[in-house]
């Protein structure tokens, strides 16, 4: 058994509104909002790295429960926007936290990385002790690369989130998770080395519209939980229109899905943990109330995780 013990987040201070990014790519602020539900996003400073942001989110997460970093048994760091091939940001985050011997593993899965990290942490905690999952993305360095693609450049933002998973105690229990990968569509959303992000948006939306609700329904059904009993859905913040569609497919109100995409855009793997940290501060887990995490991203990798407040 494993528990969610804390969440944390970090957002760069620079706010980029639709008018600003729209002027760069020849789109209007209204068009960007209509296709995505996004009004603004954060961009990191030029010298700010994925590991810098990840470490900030990690500190925020650990500080929220007074946890000392050197009590960690493992660090899992998700990022699809790392600055180099290797070493990945996991080593950099560990170093910034003052860790010199804790195993730190990179999960270069892009958007689905935080959910895969949480699920893995839940299964590893009994052997490794406390596992810190960090997801950090500097998507501005990807989407601002020339030639810019108007349809993707407007969607993304920068930020980082973190989640502490413990084998002993926490505010919620990880009940179950379901993880999936289908490499048949790996060409439809990809980031080649030194090339702009490529996304076949129609295929992504079509696949995500079916796969996300199905993954959620499967993990709920397996654990005899109804979608209507779930207190909150914390989903990857990809597109508000997609979130509404997933809610409709599950037969629940869209308001049950926590959303911050209007102010932060799509921060890839970081988005779900940033959303979780914000939600936990604003409302948070209630005893015996289920909360579902879900994501979908390049690969395609997707899945869902069921937790229950305790």
């Amino acid at each position, binding site marked *: 058994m494993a528990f969610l013990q804390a969440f944390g987040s970090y957002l760069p201070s620079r706010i980029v509104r639709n008018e600003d990014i729209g002027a760069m790519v020849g789109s209007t602020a209204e068009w960007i909002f209509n296709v995505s539900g996004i009004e603004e996003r954060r961009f990191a400073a030029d010298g700010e790295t994925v590991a810098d942001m990840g470490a900030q989110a990690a500190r925020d997460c650990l500080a929220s429960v007074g946890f000392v970093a050197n009590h960690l048994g493992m660090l899992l760091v998700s990022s699809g926007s790392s600055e180099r091939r290797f070493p990945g940001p996991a080593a950099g985050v560990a170093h910034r936290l003052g860790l010199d011997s804790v195993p730190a593993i990179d999960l270069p899965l892009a958007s689905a990385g935080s959910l895969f990290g949480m699920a893995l942490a839940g299964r590893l905690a009994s052997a490794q002790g406390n596992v810190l999952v960090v997801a950090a993305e500097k998507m501005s360095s990807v989407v601002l690369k020339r030639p810019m693609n108007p349809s993707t450049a407007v969607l993304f933002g920068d930020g980082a989130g973190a989640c502490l998973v413990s084998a002993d105690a926490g505010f919620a229990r990880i009940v179950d998770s379901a993880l999936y990968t289908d490499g048949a569509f790996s060409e439809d959303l990809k980031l080649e080395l030194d090339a702009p992000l490529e996304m076949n948006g129609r295929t992504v939306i079509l696949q995500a*519209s079916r796969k996300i609700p199905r993954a959620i329904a499967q993990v709920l059904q397996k654990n005899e939980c109804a979608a209507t009993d779930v207190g909150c859905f914390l989903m990857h913040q990809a597109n508000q229109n*997609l979130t509404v569609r997933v809610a409709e497919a599950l037969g629940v109100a869209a308001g049950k899905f926590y959303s911050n995409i209007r102010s932060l855009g799509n921060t890839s793997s970081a988005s779900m943990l940033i959303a979780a940290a914000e939600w936990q501060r604003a409302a948070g887990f209630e005893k015996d109330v289920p909360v579902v995490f879900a994501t979908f991203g390049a690969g395609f990798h997707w899945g869902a995780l069921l937790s229950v407040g305790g």
Partner: protein
Amino acid sequence: MSRQAQITEIIRTFSKKNMSPDPDESLFDSGLLDSFALPDVLSALEKAFSIKIPDSDLNPRKFDSIARIESYIESRL
């Protein structure tokens, strides 16, 4: 009602546009379909023609015109 007419009716329902596209006209380029209407259209096609569209076939290019949709449906019947 012909199969093409049935398909057109379903597309009109979910696009909320009373257009009559040519069988080979791109539904995306003509503005009849967008990324978020397509999943609904495919679900309605599954129901109307009693077929199952597997995830491996969920490629928008297969459903970009009335003719392509009709051809796909015939392949699944």
